[in-house]
């Protein structure tokens, strides 16, 4: 199956700083999603982005499918951005089945 690697595994930011999270995957994908898991365990879908660039407020994501990576940008970080960020990818198997990476744990300190 598809292998998914995320980096860095841990990140500590001062409030207001910017950051870039990376997701590398081992095969072509037709489904790529970014999620944020808050400290209470709730997973929130941030982006569905198998290719191209999307922006939502202070967050943006870019997927370069031909080079098998995706980037999540967080600008002007806030303490509420803390949590774990997951990348999940799916190939041609259908049914939108995805494989999750191991996540980047982000802590934003005031």
């Amino acid at each position: 199956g598809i292998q998914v690697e995320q980096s860095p595994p841990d990140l500590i930011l001062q409030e207001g700083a910017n950051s870039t999270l990376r997701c590398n995957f081992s095969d072509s994908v037709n489904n790529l999603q970014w999620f944020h898991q808050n400290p209470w365990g709730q997973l929130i879908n941030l982006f569905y982005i198998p290719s191209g660039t999307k922006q939502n407020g202070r967050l943006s994501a870019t997927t370069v499918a031909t080079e098998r990576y995706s980037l999540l940008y967080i600008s002007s970080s806030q303490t509420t951005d803390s949590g774990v960020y997951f990348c999940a990818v799916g190939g041609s198997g259908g049914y939108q089945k995805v494989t999750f990476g191991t996540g980047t744990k982000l802590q934003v300190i005031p």
Partner: protein
Amino acid sequence: DVKVTQSSRYLVKRTGEKVFLECVQDMDHENMFWYRQDPGLGLRLIYFSYDVKMKEKGDIPEGYSVSREKKERFSLILESASTNQTSMYLCASSSIRPTGYTFGSGTRLTVV
């Protein structure tokens, strides 16, 4: 607001019990998924369903079964709970159109 609702937030069961975890979505989604999340192992797919009464095994189906009698409801069944099934269980749904998953808030199951 669209939702995926899991019936229990916390659950404690005894070894050998039959356990039902329920998941209901109100978005008329075709696909539904059950994952478990464990420290150091991430999220792993147990089963998924792409239509009523249809199911497919995920990566770790052993010890679990599922039921989807209605489009909005997807149940995960632990036939005989064991301590190694202590975990956070997460249900998700998605449309057949290319959009993302919506997750429920999770059920933290402890088997004693």
